[in-house]
């Protein structure tokens, strides 16, 4: 075949065109998401393995609200983690695909970067790994990960968005969960009335102030598990992560309806222990506890007020304090008056952030 000058010219033009085509942006060149500076929080832990980018966060937000990741396209992450509920659930246990029901209340998603473990039982150490479970759980989204990847890859819009957010990776379980993680990292709550009080921007009500005093002293004994000074981001403790807070009366360690952390650690002594949850946004996140048994904060306060229910591994500090109260004051529980309970509730509600649940960046993008 003769190749004329024209042919050569065409080939050359094609080659030049290819070489001048814009290379896709590398991950390192993507514009990072700018997190807010929060002076009264400790430094936000870095996520070097999955730094949040603007395009990654946008993609994760879309995925979070999209039922595409469920078997019958009816359940999204937001089904169980409702933005108006501070990303918790309206139900004690939210029904999944085809009405299937698991056993635990959906935890509120807030200030996740500061947690050291995830889920009520601490099964996962990273947010993105936590994202794996609900997609494939038959009681939640009931979709296999290979099918999830196929769906996302086969959607032109998602495919292009993944190329943009993860230019050096294929669409995979890893990139889907990373996108979700990037969005979830942005769910930061820091403008509750109590936050503004700490920043000296507002005054708390006298009732909430009295409640704070109950909270942080032996009167309420909350500080053993919920520390406002060590963990202003979450109001949890930094060393003790899982505990049995005296919810249920059991005689042996095998009688718990849900072993919680015990099923993860494999240690019987850990049965009945659950992750200490944040106290932020309680005004929006009812019902409460790992199984959503309490519909109101009043019920929660009443539970703690009665003192820990007997079980072999109830939190040692709670137990010791209850025994001390019994010996020195003649009562096992906190013995709060109705006014004191109301004061404590007022303080707890002051940790709820209206700006967080109304933030347009945390709503469905479609």
């Amino acid at each position, binding site marked *: 075949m003769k190749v004329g000058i024209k042919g050569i010219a065409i080939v050359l033009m094609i080659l030049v065109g290819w070489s001048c085509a814009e290379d896709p942006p590398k991950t390192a060149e993507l514009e990072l998401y700018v997190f807010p500076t929060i002076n009264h929080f400790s430094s936000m832990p870095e996520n070097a393995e999955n730094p949040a980018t603007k395009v990654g966060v946008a993609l994760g937000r879309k995925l979070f609200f999209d039922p595409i990741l469920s078997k019958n396209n009816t359940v999204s992450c937001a089904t169980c983690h409702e933005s108006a509920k501070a990303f918790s659930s309206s139900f004690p246990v939210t029904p999944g695909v085809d009405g299937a029901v698991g056993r635990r209340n959906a935890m509120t998603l807030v200030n996740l970067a500061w947690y050291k473990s995830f889920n009520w039982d601490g099964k996962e150490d990273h947010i993105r790994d936590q994202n794996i479970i609900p997609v494939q759980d038959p009681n939640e989204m009931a979709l296999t990960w290979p099918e999830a990847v196929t769906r996302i890859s086969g959607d032109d819009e998602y495919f292009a968005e993944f190329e943009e957010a993860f230019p050096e990776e294929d669409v995979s379980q890893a990139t889907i969960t990373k996108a979700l993680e990037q969005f979830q990292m942005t769910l930061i709550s820091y403008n509750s009335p109590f936050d503004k009080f700490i920043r000296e921007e507002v005054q708390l009500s006298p009732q909430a102030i009295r409640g704070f005093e109950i909270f942080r002293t032996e009167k309420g004994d909350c500080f053993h598990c919920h520390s406002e000074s060590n963990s202003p981001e979450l109001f949890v403790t930094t060393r003790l992560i899982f505990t049995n807070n005296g919810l249920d009366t059991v005689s042996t360690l095998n009688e718990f309806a849900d072993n919680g952390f015990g099923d993860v650690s494999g240690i019987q002594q850990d049965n009945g222990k659950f992750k200490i949850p944040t106290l932020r946004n309680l005004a929006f996140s009812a019902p409460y506890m790992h199984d959503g048994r309490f519909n109101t904060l009043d019920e929660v306060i009443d539970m703690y007020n009665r003192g820990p229910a007997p079980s072999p591994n109830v939190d*040692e500090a709670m137990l010791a304090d209850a025994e001390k109260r019994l010996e020195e004051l003649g009562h096992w529980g906190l013995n709060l008056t109705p006014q004191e309970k109301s004061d404590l509730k007022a303080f707890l509600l002051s940790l709820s952030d209206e700006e967080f649940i109304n933030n347009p960046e945390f709503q469905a993008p479609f």
Partner: protein
Amino acid sequence: MKKYLLLLVVIFGLFSCDDDSETTGQVTFFLNPVFNGAEVLPNEVIQTEDGRNFSMKELRVYFTDIFLINSDDQKVRVNTIDLINWPSNNTISATVPIDQYKSIEFHVGLDEATNSLNPIDFEDSNPLSADQEMHWGMIKYRFVSFIGNVDTSAVGDLQPVNLIQYHLGRDSLYSEVTINNTFNVVGALQTYPLTFEVNELFTGASGDIDIAVHRTNHSGELDMDKASIIMHNFVEALETN
């Protein structure tokens, strides 16, 4: 001439490069709880003076502003702030001038200014950080945290299973300690124990604590008298043998 000048410079340079390590030595202090003079192990069952079984699980103490004092009454700093976590992280080390020191001074706890600092302002590894979980909104920093178990039965000779938790803090418990002893710091590592008889926490010159009855103390306002007894017994019990 230039050659000799160069030689002088080299000789001077050699002499001026004295090895600093010949003038300093390493010292390490470690917290050493004992029972009748013998080292106490974590969760080892030991007895109070009236024969009640108890055990130690954890002891965390802020030791601050440790100084060695030499014969000229000069003070040499060993540390500023350290958090001892017995049994896991139990030592305080420093490099100090070689000398024969006659005493050691230090504080148990934090001074008022330090006690008012915010734990979230420190890196996780810092002894004052939130990660150490030594700070409570109620009392600021806990200076001493003692966790153990005691047998509260009538006879007191059973396995100790009831929790003892003493969390001692507040500015009034910031305590100064001076121990007269000879510390011969030479070039090699010297190790010195900060020893105390565990029993003397509960029975001492400052008063007595019945650990079967008074098992919890968070330095609340109503418990400060007992917190003070335990703290002062502790600092009085410390020695460096």
